[in-house]
């Protein structure tokens, strides 16, 4: 379980408050989709969890131990995917494993192949990122995170740069592979649809300074035909009501 306890983040030497009193308990094997207006500190929250931004107060624990890059494996998929242009797709996927000092034996290579197969990028192994489409880059970034089998996966608007059709396609692929591994995931998005489609829980944040306004269970994850179900319409309406009420205060 990932516990975010009373976390505050300030910028400019305590001048401006970005995040206020963030309390969040993330159950293992869930996807928390965080939705909030732009500039509300969503990305800052992700950076604080991953250790890229220091937080002023509070603590972040993973299974009762302070979350840190040294002791835990944190997977990150940034908005621009963060692939190294001078490494091939395959080397990009291997890099985090090398940094973590993982033994890569034959069985593990087979496993990597399997993940790439599922994400339909097996044929791209020797290609360079400059030579890939946005959707392909995204799938490489997903593969890179999943073969790492991280303790926690953080995603910063990972699908927002894709066109609608590609996005839905890759969201489906993501869920398929996620269901096999059940990696605890924190996902930031500005799209209500995306939050509902991917999140098992939906967290709504306020405008700056970012606070958590509401945490909703997402019933849509339990039904088929997610995108067209009655539940989808219901929760989308709920979220929109909360947003209009709280964001325009």
């Amino acid at each position, binding site marked *: 379980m990932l516990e975010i306890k009373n976390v505050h983040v300030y910028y400019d030497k305590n001048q401006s408050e970005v995040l206020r009193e963030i309390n969040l308990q993330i159950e293992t094997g869930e996807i928390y989709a965080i939705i909030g207006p732009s500039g509300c500190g969503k990305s800052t929250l992700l*950076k604080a969890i*991953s*250790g*890229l931004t220091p937080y002023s107060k509070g603590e972040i624990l993973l299974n009762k131990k302070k979350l*840190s*890059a*040294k002791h835990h*494996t*944190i*997977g*990150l998929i*940034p*908005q*621009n*995917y*963060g692939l*190294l*242009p*001078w*490494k*091939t797709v395959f080397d990009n996927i291997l*890099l*985090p494993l090398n*940094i*973590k000092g993982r033994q890569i034996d034959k069985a593990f290579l087979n496993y990597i192949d399997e993940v790439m197969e599922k994400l339909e990028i097996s044929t791209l192994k020797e*290609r*360079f*990122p*400059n*030579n890939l489409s946005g959707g392909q880059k995204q799938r490489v970034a997903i593969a890179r995170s999943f073969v790492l089998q991280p303790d926690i996966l*953080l995603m910063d608007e990972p699908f927002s740069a894709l066109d609608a059709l590609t996005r839905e396609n890759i969201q489906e692929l993501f869920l398929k592979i996620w269901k096999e591994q059940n990696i605890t995931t924190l996902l930031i998005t500005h799209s209500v649809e995306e939050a509902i489609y991917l999140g098992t829980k939906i967290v709504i944040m306020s405008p700056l300074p970012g606070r958590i306004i509401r945490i909703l269970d997402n019933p849509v994850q339990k039904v088929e035909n997610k995108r067209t179900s009655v539940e989808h319409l219901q929760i989308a309406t709920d979220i929109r009501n909360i947003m209009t009420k709280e964001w325009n205060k």
Partner: protein
Amino acid sequence: MKIIDKWKDFLFGFISIILLWYMVSLLINKPILPSPIRVLANVHSLATQEIYIHLGYSLIRIFAGIAISVFIGLLLGVLMGQSKRWNKILNPIIYFTYSIPKISLLPAVMLIFGLKESSKIIMIVLIIVFQIIIAVRDSVKDIPKETYYILRCLGANKWREFKEITLPAALSSILSSIRIALGTAISILFFTEIYGTEYGMGYYIMDAWMRINYLDMYSGIIVLSLLGFILFLLIDLIEMTFLRWRNMSS
């Protein structure tokens, strides 16, 4: 396919120049412009003689100049690209010196560093190093922050960040700037080799000129051109092997 096209272009250019030269030499019909066929034959016969020593000296000076420039350029470029404070301090200096025609510093450099090897190499460094500094700085600055995030999240240390991200980004820009500066560097080399040495292609050409041996003079010019051409090919080769990712962008 691309390489074959390149060679076709090169061959066409070479033959055109030789043909033009041949026609002008027929027109002038004086020893000051011998026919290219005689000159090429002379180059061929020189290939077994002392010209190797001259070529060797020039090559060593160029390589030493490039190596020192790459070292300084990488150091200062990365420093300026990664630290706003250093960029603020060094940028005005670089900006100011960038516009100075470096060849005009030749007398000063020779006064301070003497007529021997060091002043020749320093001149080459002066030509190349600023281009490398600026190219490296810009390429390091242009690396998206997210690229570093990925590694930092995994607990990678600074050296790892440098090795996996900063260095490859810098190296690709170094090659481009060497390519741009190489032509000027060879011209400068020619100038510096007129003074204080008895070795080098510059000396060889000027010496032949003084001895009124026009055949040797033109042969020297051809060999010096060949040197430049081979260095360009070398850069192409390095680029094709190590920077495959850049050429494959669609």
